[in-house]
């Protein structure tokens, strides 16, 4: 298929009007029609119903539209990057992170795209997965990284990036702190600090507490709050393995690794990707995320995000 054919089709899809689409593409209507027909031939079916006044996408048209939009945006990203740079008008990249996703995950991708997008400005937002989906749809953020998430609207693209397990994190003075692993019975008899809007609450409930609820202690929606409370000896927290930990905490695997989740990348379909977003999505979908959880079960070394010295 050819770029211009795809452009013609996308123009028809957005205007649902051949005359306006032809104007938009700066071509004659017969040329536009011919291009769309050629594309239909290649894609193996009609993309657009043309009935009297009514122009509508066919099922095939609807099926291929988001993909073609993305492909075209991707093909044009390099040219737009140069234009942005010339205009000194680089679109900011706003990334939403669920509370269980550490900013440490996006540092390397940001450094990578900053090499190619001069003037890059990144803004990080934190929010529960549902909230991030709303922010995406409102255009307040461009991409989001979340854990397990239910009911992602069809308008949002959703790529699985990697899978990780949950581990127990506690103070070194905790009575379970010297165990090689922590089993179900141990957890039932200890106080768990409650993570508000936890991605894997249902899984934990099913794995560990099918009959009676856990003994929940203090509560927060912020990982760092939970870490400080765990360090103070208030209880045990379950954290995704990539999450950087306070150096005063100990990490112990859960017996049999019963709780794991996928970390996913979300972006809105059909919205024109900025060059920075295009690069971010591409890097994220190729990156070897296993470097974030290198030594399963081994407590992490010092952690830059949360113990950074004031500057």
């Amino acid at each position, binding site marked *: 298929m050819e770029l211009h054919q795809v452009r013609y089709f996308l123009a028809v899809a957005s205007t649902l009007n051949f005359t306006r689409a032809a104007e938009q593409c700066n071509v004659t209507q017969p040329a536009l029609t011919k291009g769309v027909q050629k594309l239909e031939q290649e894609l193996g079916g009609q993309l657009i119903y043309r009935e009297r006044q009514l122009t509508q996408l066919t099922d095939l048209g609807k099926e291929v539209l988001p993909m073609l939009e993305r492909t*075209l945006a991707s093909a044009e*990203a390099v040219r737009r990057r140069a234009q942005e740079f010339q205009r000194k008008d680089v679109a900011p990249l706003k990334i939403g992170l669920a509370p269980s996703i550490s900013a440490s995950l996006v540092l390397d991708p940001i450094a990578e795209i900053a090499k190619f997008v001069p003037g890059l400005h990144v803004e990080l937002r934190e929010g529960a997965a549902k909230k991030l989906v709303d922010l995406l749809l409102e255009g307040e953020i461009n991409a989001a990284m979340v854990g397990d998430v239910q009911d992602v609207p069809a308008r949002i693209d959703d790529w699985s990036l990697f899978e990780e397990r949950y581990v127990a994190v506690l103070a070194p003075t905790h009575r379970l702190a010297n165990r090689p692993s922590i089993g179900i019975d141990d957890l039932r008899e200890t106080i768990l600090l409650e993570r508000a809007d936890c991605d894997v609450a249902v899984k934990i409930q099913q794995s560990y507490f099918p009959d009676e609820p856990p003994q929940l202690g203090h509560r927060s929606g912020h990982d760092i709050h939970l870490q400080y409370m765990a360090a103070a000896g208030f209880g045990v927290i379950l954290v995704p393995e990539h999450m950087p930990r306070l150096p005063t905490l100990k990490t112990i695997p859960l017996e049999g690794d019963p709780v794991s989740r996928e970390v996913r990348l979300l972006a809105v379909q059909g919205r024109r990707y900025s060059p920075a977003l295009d690069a971010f999505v591409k890097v994220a979908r190729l990156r*070897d995320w296993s470097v974030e959880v290198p030594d399963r079960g081994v407590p992490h070394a010092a952690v830059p995000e949360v113990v950074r010295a004031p500057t």
Partner: protein
Amino acid sequence: MTATRTSAANRFQPIDHQPDDSSPMLSQTDKTLARIRTELLTMFSAADWESYNHLVGWLRDTDVASHALKVGDDAPDFLLPDAEGRLHSSEQLRRNGPLVLSFFRGGWCPFCTAELRALQAAKDEFESVGATLAVVTPETRDFPRQLKRGLGLDLKVLSDVDYGVAMSYGVLFRVPDETRAHYSGRGFDFGARHGSPVWMLPIPATYVIDAEGRIRSAFVEPDFTIREEPAQILALLRQAACTSSEGGGSWKATPGQSGNEPV
């Protein structure tokens, strides 16, 4: 059909490769890709033949290769991540000499892996004439890493995430339903591999792009079993190295560049 296939394979003069005993993994290097192709075709099942004939026939009927960029065209610039998630821009890749850019279908395709091994074996020679080699796959996630590890490749494997580069080079097509059914049956889920609900593939193609971003050679072949021999690319690069001091412009198109019927 069989006669056509054979003649297509024989279009290229077999060029004897320098024997390379550096790696036992790459024991194929004394064979031309045309010969490996013949061997791979003997392993085709009846279903493979049917699917192969259908896809190649369909690609020729719809003349998909006619969109492909040709010698003299400007090569579209791109910014793609490699298998490790590092970005590479086309400007960078061709800054110091010609860029050999080869589109392949994926790590699941034996003709592609044969080609990649042959390119790997020729990599030092490419570099010795000042050329940079990059191969482009539609696969994402850890598939390119697995491929590199599995074949012991030390090549720049770029991932054409969302197919934008294959589309801008005009070598992209939507996998027809019959082909999709065949590959699904073989256990290949391009949706998962590409991260895309719509299954697309590139026509295998090898481009040589000069430092100014102009296409100097284009090998585009709808018959996915036929690839450009590294020795042939190398001959082109050497020829270019000789003529570039005189201002270039004397490059010839390689056979198959138009993607038309071979014979």
